[in-house]
């Protein structure tokens, strides 16, 4: 099984994602330059955070036209797992692989802090697993579980028209919501003004996932949280299963 970390000009969480996939989870992982034509040979595609093209226009608005994005869209269409973190989430929205858009934080300031993301749907490919922390304790997915992860963005305010929001809710596409430390979904716990406190969503078919918090910054007790591991463990398990069923290439896994 093989993971791709896409590098756009201006990606800056690419190395962090690569490190977690490769060193923490032992996954065969490669950087893929945005000018590459294909990501066909990968089983998991990660769009990392950063400021693609400086984000001088609208976050992700130029990156979606990168050559590699055509292949990402095709692979997503085929059901491959695609995960966009922060700027990656913004690019997935711009590329219409996820509904809605991410606009300027309602505070008008960049915000960097730890938040709690409450797990809303524990049945997605990105949020179902159980993982051991370094102290041996198990972190097990369940609805209502709080994951403590950092956010760091200027444009993380998720917006969509009422119908889309209703659909997201109805189809259980909302994977994470910002909550307070007790799990309450409040305005005070919302770092950016996001609609319904949305922190992360999947597409209708459940194979494309975007989230604003950074799980790759929450995989080491030294950094104050290992909660991000639950997401990586889930996606890797899911990609493994898919690989076994659909792709003869990675049998060695």
């Amino acid at each position, binding site marked *: 099984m093989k993971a791709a970390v896409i590098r756009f000009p201006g990606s*800056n*969480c690419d190395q*962090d994602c690569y490190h*977690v996939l490769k060193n923490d989870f032992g996954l065969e992982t490669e950087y893929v330059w945005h000018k590459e034509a294909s990501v066909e040979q990968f089983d998991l595609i990660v769009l990392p955070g950063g*400021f693609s093209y*400086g984000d*001088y226009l609208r976050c992700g608005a130029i990156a979606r036209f990168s050559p590699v994005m055509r292949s990402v869209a095709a692979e997503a269409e085929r059901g491959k797992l695609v995960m966009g973190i922060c700027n990656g989430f913004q690019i997935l929205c711009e590329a219409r692989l996820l509904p809605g858009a991410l606009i300027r934080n309602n505070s008008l300031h960049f915000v*960097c802090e730890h938040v709690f993301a409450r797990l809303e749907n524990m049945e997605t490919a990105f949020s179902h697993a159980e993982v051991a922390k370094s102290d041996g304790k198990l972190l097990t997915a369940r609805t209502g579980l709080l994951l403590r992860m950092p956010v760091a963005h200027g444009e993380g305010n998720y917006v969509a028209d009422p119908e889309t929001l209703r659909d997201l809710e109805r189809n259980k596409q909302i994977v994470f919501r910002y909550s307070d430390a007790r799990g309450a979904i409040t305005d005070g716990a919302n770092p950016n003004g996001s609609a319904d406190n949305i922190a992360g969503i999947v597409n209708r078919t459940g194979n494309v996932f975007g989230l604003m918090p950074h799980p790759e910054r929450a995989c080491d007790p030294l950094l*104050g949280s290992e909660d991000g591991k639950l997401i990586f463990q889930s996606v890797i398990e899911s990609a493994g299963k898919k690989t076994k069923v659909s792709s003869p290439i990675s049998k060695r896994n």
Partner: protein
Amino acid sequence: MNNEPAITPELIAKHGITPDEFERIRSILGRDPNFTELGIFSVMWSEHCSYKNSKPELRKFPTTGKGVLVKAGEENAGVIDIGDGWAIAFKMESHNHPSAIEPFQGAATGVGGIIRDIFTMGARPVFSLNSLRFGPISGNGDDTRKAAIAHNRRLFAGVVSGIAHYGNCIGIPTIGGEIYFDESYEGNPLVNVFCLGVLRHEEIARGGAVGIGNPVFYVGAETGRDGLAGAAFASRDLTEESKQDRPAVQVGDPFREKLLLEACLELLASGAVAGIQDMGAAGLTCSTCETASRAGTGVEIDLEKVPKREPGMTPYEIMLSESQERMLIIVTKGQEQTVRDIFEKWDLPYAEVGVVNDDGMMRVRVGSDIVAEIPAHKLAEDAPIYSREATPRPAPAPLGPLPDADPIAALPALLAHPSIASKNWVYRQYDHMVRAGTCVLPGSDAAVFLVREANKILAASSDCNAFYTSLDPREGAKIAVAESARNLSCSGAVPLAVTDNLNFGNPYKPENFWQLRECVEGLAEACREFGTPVVGGNVSLYNQSPAGAVDPTPTVGMVGLIEQASHITTQAFKAAGDAILLLGDVGNELGGSHYVKVVHGRKAGIPPRLDYAKEKAVQAAVRALIRMGFVRSAHDCSEGGLAVALAECCMSGEALFGAELDLSAALNGRADELLFNESQSRIVISVRRENASAALSLAHWQGVPARRLGFIGGEDLRIKAGDHAWSWPVSELREKWWGSIRASMEQG
């Protein structure tokens, strides 16, 4: 060029060149300089590039020591060993003047400049700090006063957004630093930025134009008319007319710099680079003559080949432009294609603009016309050196009698003072967690960062209490070093080395020059005492507004190494029931304290004295206790003294804690003296109750006075001393401390 202005005494004076300096230029050239050459000399011989007024002082710093791989002044940044074949490059630099007139871009390009200094060394930049100083952002007064305060707020907000804009985009976390607010910085804020990078020993890159016949490449952004002669601008007093110098402020593009950073590191790894130098102050001028001077060679460039943003630029403009995100690279002959491939991959402009030659000249051509021809070494190294006149300022007078003040009101007032208050309004705007290495979030004694590729944990702190340096420059400078080392020790680190940023007023004023000399001697002495060589830094003079010079501010940036993860220690209390101990004396020095300033409105008195033996002992003791696993929290006593330190321990963690302390045994005079004195060499630690006596014995055994002050518990901070008993609800203290800066910024 025939339409160039004639070289008149007025033009020479306008370039900040004295008649003596002009004669020196004539003797170097053997003729009169032309207009372009005059411009080139004026920037290279500005204080910013030549250190002509400070060099004799800077020579006093200890610059060598175990582990120093690249010394101060040798290259763009110093490099020190951190073990296992790994090294770090770090440096601090100022962008004060640009930030005074255009805070957003001024600060942003300051960040960009220091990052380039680091990757020029072949290091990957991994984190930044910044040390900022502004005029007051709160307070009352007449309309003029209110307008001045509103302006200070705009500068502060602009600088913070500028740093956030650049640092966040390029993906280098800003993980700590310091911010002070004081009248002396009104009209002339200080913006000192620090960056640290990591590399293997064998990856150290040099800025020499080596190899006769090697091609010289220009890479990065196109040259424009921005930042014309910024180095010369930075070497003048700020006046009302300075706003007209706005074209001297550069415009930054962090996205371009991110590409440049990645492309340069990729190119360095390819082995095609013979020499590399960033174009910072004095741009193309400085990078060509310095690389040639270092290698003892010459460099010839053709300005027609330089990528330009607009047509019609004169040689003078091209040579003096300080457009950002540009580098000069001397490429090993035959490897030109590697450069082209890499820079095309990253979509960055590049051009082969010249060649290394053996005649020692910096020769600038436009096609076949020679527009400047100057001996490179003399231009880079033979700037006049001045030893300025120094007039001591009177020694500070003792404080004298102070009216009584109620500690119940004084503590929250101190905690709400923006210099002491939480800086969360600021660091929330900085991405302080990118690169997934920030082990201690901003707001503790030192920033702590795990460099994953090297498996090393670094700690860094920047410090300078300018109240002390304004009252007693020498003692204040010593304390800045001691406090930096203490902050590192409290975090579990062993101090390694120092970079400094010397911010002073106009050196032609003998009092200012005396302050500079005193501070340098104080820093140098303390750096020797703590075994931390100075591996680089920056001098920023002419920091004055019409109201006068800023307080002398020799900012110290110190880096240390934490041996293992379990030694990482933060200032916040961890658990109710733990014992609170004080390492060091209770102290009694109120002179120069924030208490006297904030509560009594005076910046006065004799600042605290530093006793090296005591200081080193207390730091060794805290490090030893940390290594033994006793220490649950450690926090040094600085601005606001013991009471502020205790309050910060109670409220700076994720959970709030109360504490109960009895200082009766230490009460020996005034209560405010006991609570708020700023005597040095004091650290508050907390340990499990059962470890308290062992920890005390160990401290005593190391010759450090130590006592148990009380324990953690309850919801209030309660302090008893003789007949006095004070109590503050911690949640209320936290509200003042946490929300103070936000409240000031939102009012206007």
